[in-house]
């Protein structure tokens, strides 16, 4: 006799670093159906953006996500610059590219550690996170910050790259590239990793396209689509690089794709540093943006990032929409999970590199200009007790 049991996964769960809920229907050890419920980290950023000036919005956009903060601000500044019809100096474009790629390296190292943790390979987790310190140090050297780099301004970047910093970055990324080659070898050789990743979380090419997956998840399903190559922004039209694809359609391919992307990023950074144009790094821009409708796309470490801006001739946007890669991959994720084992849930979820706080930004309440009102702890606690009694 088979019976279907419902298992909740999250919002609080050690495999998820952020709060999100997946309701699984399982039959024995197999997953039959899954329903995602997002919104636990919903901060109402989209609504809040409409109440703030473009300068203030820049800071808010930076805080959509902790890991890909630079990708979001690049997308935002590009949109606003296009609306203002401003051309950013080439040097600023190159610096943006360098930070974007450093961020990608950081993200992929971070992700590899998480994947190792999900399959219980603690040693690989410790090693990758140790090496991640190198790239964080480089970013700190460059921007002054380890996570929220705040490098972008509307009309350019905030800090310049001096020759000393440049040589330090060169040295750092060399180490990072070599280490990643070593990790890639481990991930393609080690029996236990292969046992947990090959043929796990299958997303066929056809499904990947029809479910609109993005980023490394899509490229691991053998679709050559990368915003950097297709719709070049910053300095990507001048820098040669390969778009990495794998045709395994499983978690092992996703690991390999990201490993190769790091190696590719190292080359991009080297090229950009060697060909860094001279000149200023910023232009002065007006605070008022003429009416326009702009779509800006950026290849964030996790995939395509799309921002939509509608300005109305004031210093505040009329509508600003953010679509982060995780939301795009969520439907594809559900497809991957169905038919798999319960024990594979964490690794499959981690496989798309989810960032739930990116995904959950949209609209809501907590943000208010003049007073903080949100729910204080006590009120929230009472509400929680009441809610659960009803259940």
């Amino acid at each position: 006799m088979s019976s279907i049991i419902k298992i909740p996964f999250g919002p609080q769960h050690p495999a998820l670093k952020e709060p999100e809920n997946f309701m699984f229907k399982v039959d024995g050890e197999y997953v039959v159906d899954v329903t995602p419920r997002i919104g636990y980290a919903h901060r109402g950023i989209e609504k809040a953006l409409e109440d703030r000036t473009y300068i203030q919005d820049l800071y808010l956009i930076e805080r959509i996500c902790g890991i890909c903060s630079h990708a979001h601000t690049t997308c935002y500044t590009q949109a606003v610059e296009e609306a203002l019809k401003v051309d950013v100096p080439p040097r600023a474009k190159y610096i943006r590219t360098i930070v974007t790629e450093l961020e990608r390296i950081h993200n992929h190292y971070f992700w590899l550690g998480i994947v190792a943790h999900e399959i219980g390979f603690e040693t690989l987790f410790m090693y990758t996170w140790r090496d991640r310190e190198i790239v964080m140090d480089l970013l700190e050297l460059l921007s002054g910050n380890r996570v929220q780099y705040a490098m972008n301004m509307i009309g350019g970047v905030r800090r310049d790259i001096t020759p000393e910093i440049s040589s330090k970055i060169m040295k750092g990324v060399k180490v990072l590239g070599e280490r990643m080659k070593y990790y890639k070898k481990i991930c393609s050789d080690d029996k236990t990793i292969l046992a947990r990743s090959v043929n796990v979380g299958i997303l066929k090419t056809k499904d990947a396209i029809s479910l609109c997956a993005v980023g490394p998840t899509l490229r691991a399903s053998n679709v050559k689509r990368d915003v950097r190559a297709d719709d070049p922004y910053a300095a990507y039209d001048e820098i040669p690089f390969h778009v990495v694809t794998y045709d395994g359609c499983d978690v092992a391919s996703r690991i390999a794709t990201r490993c190769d992307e790091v190696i590719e990023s190292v080359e991009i950074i080297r090229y950009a540093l060697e060909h860094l144009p001279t000149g200023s790094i910023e232009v002065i821009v007006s605070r008022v943006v003429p009416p326009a409708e702009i779509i800006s796309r950026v290849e964030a470490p996790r995939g395509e990032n799309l921002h939509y801006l509608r300005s109305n001739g004031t210093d505040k946007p009329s509508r600003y929409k953010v679509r982060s890669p995780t939301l795009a991959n969520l439907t594809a994720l559900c497809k991957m999970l169905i038919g798999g084992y319960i024990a594979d849930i964490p690794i499959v979820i981690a496989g798309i590199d989810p960032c739930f706080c990116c995904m959950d930004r949209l609209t809501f309440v907590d943000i208010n200009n003049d007073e903080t009102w949100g729910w204080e702890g006590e009120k929230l606690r009472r509400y929680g007790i009441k809610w659960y009694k009803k259940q």
Partner: protein
Amino acid sequence: MVQEAIISLLQIVIFPGFLFLILAAFFYEWVDRKFVARLQNRYGPLHTGPRGLLQPFADFLKLLSKEDIIPYAADKLLFSAVPIFLLSLPLTALFCIPIINSTALISFEGDLILVIFITTIIVISVFIGAWSSTNRFSTVGGMRACLQMLGYEIPMTIAMAGPAIVAKTLSISKIVQWQTTGLWFILTQPLGFIIVTICFLAELQKIPFDIPKAETEVVAGWLTEFSGKKLALLRLAEDLELVLAGSIMASLYLGGPAGFSFMPPFVWFIIKLTVCILILSNLRALFARFRIDQLMRGVWKYLTPLALLQIILVELIPW
């Protein structure tokens, strides 16, 4: 008469009895943590005591002082009894292991069977603990622990029969005594040693077989609901299990306290025990976690036939 009684009492309570075993448990937890940490390029325990030596003890004390929560829906009696079971079982088994000389505190014909039986009862207690706490994650963890036991127990028992067959005894002490005259069994039965090592990794629920406690899948597995004093006792029990596993390996395959006469037998035992525990820790740092179905398949497909092969080899080859 009185003197003998006092000595045997001291032996049971202090050395090599309770006090020594518990101290050894704390020490080997430190060895385990520190060694794995160094392999993983971390520092491990650092601040409490010299090189963090007292950290496991400090953790124990800290947990003792923490709030002890019993879930509302739990079976309170069983839930409270399980930590005590789990603490006393490995201690009992350890009394059957010869430590200071070639005769253990408790030694009788058939104590090997008792020790194997106790390792099974430990898993059953784990299951009872998981079941009585009524947590979903605990239940899944407990089920997994039992399922895992069904896999590893049979090859482990078969492999352990190897030394017993050769020494023609079912007493651990006599197996150890046999090895003082003959060869160590690791030399004649290396396959059995490897099988027992792998099975103990599963028994101790260490990576790559920490499936019942897989943090990212089932939180803390069967341990999820335990807190405060109970968790402290359970952690101590786990350390004792580690010592037990190392001692069984050292006794059955490395000759227990036997060694050259320039050092007392007890020191030889400690050295061998440390080696065995380092083997168990070292393996932990090398692998990722298997899935339960992969473990079962591997155990039934490879380990059990290999264990049988070892027994056949023992029968065929005279030593």
